């Protein structure tokens, strides 16, 4: 392509080169200006949250507001511990996110493997049934799900937080796409070598679908961490709640003490923000995959 275009433009582009470069320069500055403004709009609230969390209550309601705290108060952070059982809720959130993520990675990859590589009667019907789950907004199933938890005597327990979230039609589809993208010869060759389905699944397919597993794992972790409605419904003992509910409750205690509320909001989101910043590339790739493959 490049070769064929070269002879076509001998003198022309060379003459235009100088203004063109200037125009590109200006365009680049304009683009960065635009991106900086967008970044401020999207990330600015977090900066304001951080700054407010260190201010005293009186300073936070000063008019006009100060940007930097005149003195940095850590007391807002300790106040969070007094208002809600933060440590317990943090560990509940971690257990909830890890249990859902580990279970989904194992279970979804198993079912995805079956749909992608095993031939069995009724495969399309079962697949359509799985597909139908995707159409139903999960919030609408909470009444029967609550009843099931009640029947299992699991209300107000930690397992109640993660039990339904261990299974996912979405995860099955996402991983199925990954398995389908692998060369079929691989499966054939492994079978000819006498490998059984479990070995093909665990030692051949799973390692090759690693990008998909990482994507699903991170997405599940984010969704589990942030979920509000389900823990709110299924548990009401503060010691059995996740941080999302804890933060909503904190608002009930410190109605308008915004410095404390900001400190609490920051503490509840920080673990996930750290995971995201460290794994930024993977998270974004995973999100992009849901758009192109999911």
């Amino acid at each position, binding site marked *: 392509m490049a070769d064929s275009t070269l002879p076509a433009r001998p003198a022309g582009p060379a003459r235009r080169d100088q203004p063109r470069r200037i125009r590109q320069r200006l365009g680049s500055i304009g683009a960065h200006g635009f991106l900086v403004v967008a970044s401020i709009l999207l990330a600015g*609230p977090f900066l304001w949250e951080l700054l407010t969390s260190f201010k005293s209550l009186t300073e936070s309601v000063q008019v006009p507001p100060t940007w930097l705290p005149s003195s940095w108060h850590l007391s807002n952070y300790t106040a969070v511990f007094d208002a809600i059982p933060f440590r317990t809720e943090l560990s509940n959130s971690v257990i909830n996110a890890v249990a859902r993520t580990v279970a989904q990675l194992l279970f979804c990859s198993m079912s995805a493997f079956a749909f992608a590589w095993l031939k069995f009667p009724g495969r399309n019907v079962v697949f359509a049934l799985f597909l139908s789950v995707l159409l139903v907004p999960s919030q609408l199933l909470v009444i029967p*799900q609550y009843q099931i938890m009640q029947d299992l005597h699991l209300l107000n327990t930690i397992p109640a937080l993660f039990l*339904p979230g261990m*299974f996912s039609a979405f995860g099955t589809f996402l991983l199925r796409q990954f398995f389908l993208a692998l060369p079929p010869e691989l499966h054939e060759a492994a079978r000819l070598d*006498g490998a059984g389905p479990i070995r093909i699944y665990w030692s051949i397919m799973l390692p090759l679908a690693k990008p998909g597993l990482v994507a699903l794992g991170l997405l599940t972790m984010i969704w589990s961490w942030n979920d509000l409605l389900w823990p709110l419904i299924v548990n009401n003992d503060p010691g059995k709640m996740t941080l999302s509910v804890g933060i*909503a409750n904190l608002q009930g205690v410190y109605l308008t003490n915004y410095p404390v509320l900001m400190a609490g909001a920051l503490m509840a989101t920080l673990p996930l923000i750290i995971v995201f910043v460290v794994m930024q590339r993977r998270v974004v790739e995973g999100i*992009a995959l849901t758009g192109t493959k999911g």
Partner: protein
Amino acid sequence: MTEMATRDVAGPAGSRNASRAASPKGGAAPAAGRRRRGRGRGPNTSAWWALFFLAPTGIGLGVFYIWPVIQTFYYSFTSWGPFGGHTFTGLANYRSLLHDPALSSAFLNTLWYCLLGLLGIPVSLVLAQVLGRRGRKGVSVYRTLMFLPVITMPAAVAIVWRWLYNGDYGLVDELLSKVGIKGPYWISDPHTALIAVAIVGIWSTVGYNMVVLMAGIQGIPRTYYEAAELDGAGPVRQFLSVTLPLLTPSIFFVMVYSVIGSLQTFDLIYVLIGPTNAALPQSQSVIYLFYQDSFINNNRGYGAAMAFVLMLVVIAVTGLQFRLQKRWVHYG
């Protein structure tokens, strides 16, 4: 669960050793392999294996997702007493749904959330185009900053925005006053509460839409742009004639996802608006009303009917979008 995981780890390792040991022993091994493959194709062996691999997710989805759909449908014809227990009341719930002013306004509010939420897509598209340009510097820094709202817990986001929207000391009104606008009490004013929620909704999804659209833009073959450039098309023309048509599948996905997300608005209403807010009727979503009726007022049968209607609406809207896509989505 961990028991299962370790069994799976042990399984393949064990069988690997066994087959390594067996295969050099002579001509029997390939034949056995072929016979096994033949058997694997037959209905029996494969069906058992499929059952094994599908069982966890299949049972889980069946118990917690598929069966509840049927149950929700059944509950929607029942009335619940204050101490549990329910009686069959036929279509009574659906009849009251029709005459519930709270529900019709909640549906109207939710419709607004869907429409306003779509406004975030052109913004995301421009961002994706500018950020996704070849050789753009600082992509990962910008992307991290813009993506923060997407990964942050909506409950925490709502608290932060409550502070930003505060009518007396909030940053939003403070900045507006700098340009001479007297800002409202955003979340307690019935005229602005819905807009305030919608803005936070857009704010928290722009980064997601941008990333999906950027992946779509980067998937467009470079040769199309080279051809367009040879034809003398400038950047704007290239965007309109190459990027936009080829990006329609991604735009379609983002639209469907955005509408489904807006139909499910709950967390923002619960924390940002709150149950005692005077502006609640003008801003509450269907899911919020559903939560209120089913779990606060313990009117489960009525809630189930509401849930079922909303489910039909979601399916209908999504179906409609898929039907309409033939008119404007180009699959290269």
